[in-house]
């Protein structure tokens, strides 16, 4: 027992990820944390997407279940769990059953290497980027299986579209990633890294986010990735596989209830996953703004207060909305609920001001904030853009993004050579 406690505590002073330190207990804890955190993030995304989209479209969005519809995603999840589980008579049962699991598995597995901070990842692999790209593209297998096993026309077309789309955009995506890998090698030893943590540390030591490196090359590379990642996750304006107006629901037309919700979960966690790649590769991962320029203990203190301030602000929003709730007794429970939610948020905010918590949490905060900005972009795209047609989508992928990313790759390599020759 004592040994076990020692084993558990020994990690706390480590500056490595649990996986790299070989500490199975903490690795397991991190896996659980990421799993729950991701599920909560997907639930929050569900609510936020409906609310933000609604406000863009001159409507209110969910308002009935809980204050401002806060409990709507939970109600929906319950409904999906309780729904009848339909499997078409002509479907290939085993493949139909395993397809959503495969999609969810690949969407969650990539989070093993996502670095929420220098120590906040399950493990640090020396092939981190390759692992993420590889595993996240496994989900296309699940989608093809779902479309094929449904034994129906619309899902089949949706699955074919999806696979063609994801495979095409992966090429441009991969080349954009390679340009970042080249940038990481611009150091004294001249060796680059594929490790997610290593890439962020390279940005820290070079003193610049890679989006601004070799301006505008980094920016173009980032742009290519940002477009490709929307296509990769099958979101608007590249949501052809599930184009509602054409294919009813694409590859998951025949799915319902819990199986369908697995696809939903996978879609949103895949969005978060690719956004984390973009944040790690171009936007400095967990680094706070200006870590070198505004260094020193005062700046450190100021920036470490941000998480607490954010939560206090959200709590303030809750209290403001509470004051604006209708005074009718019918709304009493909702008003109380909203105030309670505000209290919880405020307590979390106060907790985040405590020194040891503050130090450990701020990396996660900055990482999540950057990812959240991408999530907002996803919603914004959806509210703004019409949908591309299939051939146009292919044209954008192969004729625009691919040559662009090749050009960026060659120019980055050239710029890097000039840079290292100059030293």
């Amino acid at each position: 027992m004592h040994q076990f406690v020692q084993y558990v505590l020994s990690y706390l002073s480590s500056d490595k990820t649990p996986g790299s330190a070989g500490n199975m207990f903490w690795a397991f804890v991190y896996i659980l944390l990421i799993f729950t955190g991701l599920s909560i993030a997907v639930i929050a995304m569900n609510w936020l997407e409906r609310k933000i989209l609604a406000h863009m479209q001159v409507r209110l969005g969910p308002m009935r279940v809980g204050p401002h519809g806060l409990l709507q995603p939970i109600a929906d999840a319950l409904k999906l769990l309780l729904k009848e589980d339909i499997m078409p008579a002509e479907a290939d049962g085993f493949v139909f059953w395993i397809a959503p699991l495969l999609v969810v598995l690949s969407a969650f597995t990539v989070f093993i290497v996502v670095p929420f901070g220098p120590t906040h990842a399950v493990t640090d692999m020396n092939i981190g980027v390759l692992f993420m790209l590889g595993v996240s593209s496994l989900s296309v297998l699940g989608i093809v299986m779902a479309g094929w096993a449904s034994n129906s026309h619309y899902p089949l077309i949706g699955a074919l579209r999806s696979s063609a789309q994801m495979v095409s955009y992966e090429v441009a995506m991969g080349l954009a990633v390679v340009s970042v890998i080249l940038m990481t090698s611009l150091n004294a030893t001249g060796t680059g890294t594929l490790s997610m943590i290593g890439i962020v540390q390279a940005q820290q030591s070079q003193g610049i986010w890679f989006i601004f490196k070799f301006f505008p090359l980094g920016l173009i590379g980032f742009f290519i990735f940002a477009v490709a990642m929307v296509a990769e996750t099958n979101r608007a304006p590249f949501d052809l596989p599930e184009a509602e107006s054409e294919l009813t629901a694409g590859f998951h037309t025949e799915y319902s209830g819990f199986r369908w919700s697995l696809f939903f979960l996978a879609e949103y966690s895949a969005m978060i996953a690719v956004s984390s790649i973009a944040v790690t590769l171009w936007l400095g991962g967990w680094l706070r703004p200006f870590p070198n320029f505004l260094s020193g203990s005062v700046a450190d203190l100021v920036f470490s207060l941000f998480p607490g301030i954010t939560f206090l602000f959200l709590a303030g929003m809750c209290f403001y909305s509470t004051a604006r709730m209708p005074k009718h007794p019918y709304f009493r429970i909702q008003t109380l609920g909203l105030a309670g939610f505000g209290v919880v948020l405020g307590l979390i905010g106060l907790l985040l001001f405590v020194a040891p918590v503050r130090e450990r949490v701020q990396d996660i905060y900055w990482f999540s904030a950057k990812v959240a900005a991408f999530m907002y972009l996803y919603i914004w795209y959806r509210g703004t853009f019409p949908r591309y047609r299939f051939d146009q989508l292919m044209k954008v992928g192969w004729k625009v993004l691919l040559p662009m990313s090749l050009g960026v790759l060659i120019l980055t390599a050239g710029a890097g050579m000039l840079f290292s020759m100059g030293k």
Partner: protein
Amino acid sequence: MTDQNTSLSPLDLETPEKPFLDANELVINMGPQHPATHGVLRVILRLDGEKVMGLECVIGYLHRGVEKIGENRTYTMFNPYVDRMDYVAAVSNGLGYCETVEKLLGVEAPPRAQYIRVILTELNRMASHQLWLGTHALDIGAITPLFYTFRDREEILKIFEKYCGARLTTHAFRIGGLQYEAYEGFEKDVRNFVSFVAPKIDEYEELLTTNRIWLERTKGVGIISGKDCIALGVTGPVLRASGVKWDLRKAQPYANYKNFDFDIPIGQCGDTYDRYLVRMAEFRQSLRIIQQAVDGIPEGPIMAKVPKVIKPPVGEVYHSIEAPKGELGYFIVSDGSTQPYRLRVRPPSFVNLQALDQMCRGQLVADVIAVIGTLDIVLGEVDR
């Protein structure tokens, strides 16, 4: 699925070349329950990959026998039934029917009634186009314009509701004029609406007209030439977008339209984008007409001298108006009794739908959706 050689179309449609060596044709049934077929249209698509080799429309899911009902109702009793054909442009249907019976009777609605009719009909044209724009954009994947158009269409429906108590199936007109005098503040409401909606139309255009994806999705999609339109009997904005300047409001003026100053917007190449532009221009022309009508609305009676029991003389009459979707015609044969001997409706949606096959051949599945949207069909009118 009938054999492709026994096509009923007046045009000789060629089967597009197959892109692959041994690609199998996939027959897909789109509708009647499908999110983008605007009701209960069923389209049987023959696909080669994503390419449409041909298609066939199956209609009749909303058939209610409106024409037969017309033979069993008196002229007055049948009036509300026409609202249920093109239910998003019920006022236009009513105008067509009332004018046809008036023509048969040889009476004419008094000027004040005609002005109010024009205002309401043009408002209804805008409401119909707004619904078209929202759903068409939704089909192409832009979800936001739908809510914007519905927000503004609401203002039109409010005016209808204030005028006659109904929002959708209004039954606004009577044979010989109007039953209701314009309510107090009607002119003010209409004027307010005109100034309210003009910037909103710019807003729709801002979202779509120069949007790259919108341009790519609509330009060169579903092209139909003016000649083919005329051969198929296609009318309305679809015909005008193909470059044929044919608008019944100018060509065969009815209901006082000759007193108003407005243009007929036409397109050049007859693709989906041109049809979009033509309808957007029609919004503005409708606003012009409404503005003139509300400025020049005369005083006077609103009902002509029409007998309580309408018994038109023996004879037949055809009268057509420019409904939002095209030429809406009524053909009535009277045997001198209180009920029509035969009543035939020429619905624009039904005739325009015949062009679907022509417009979709060789295009992709996604274009079928765009073309169905751009034809602006209402199944209540197609099936009657």
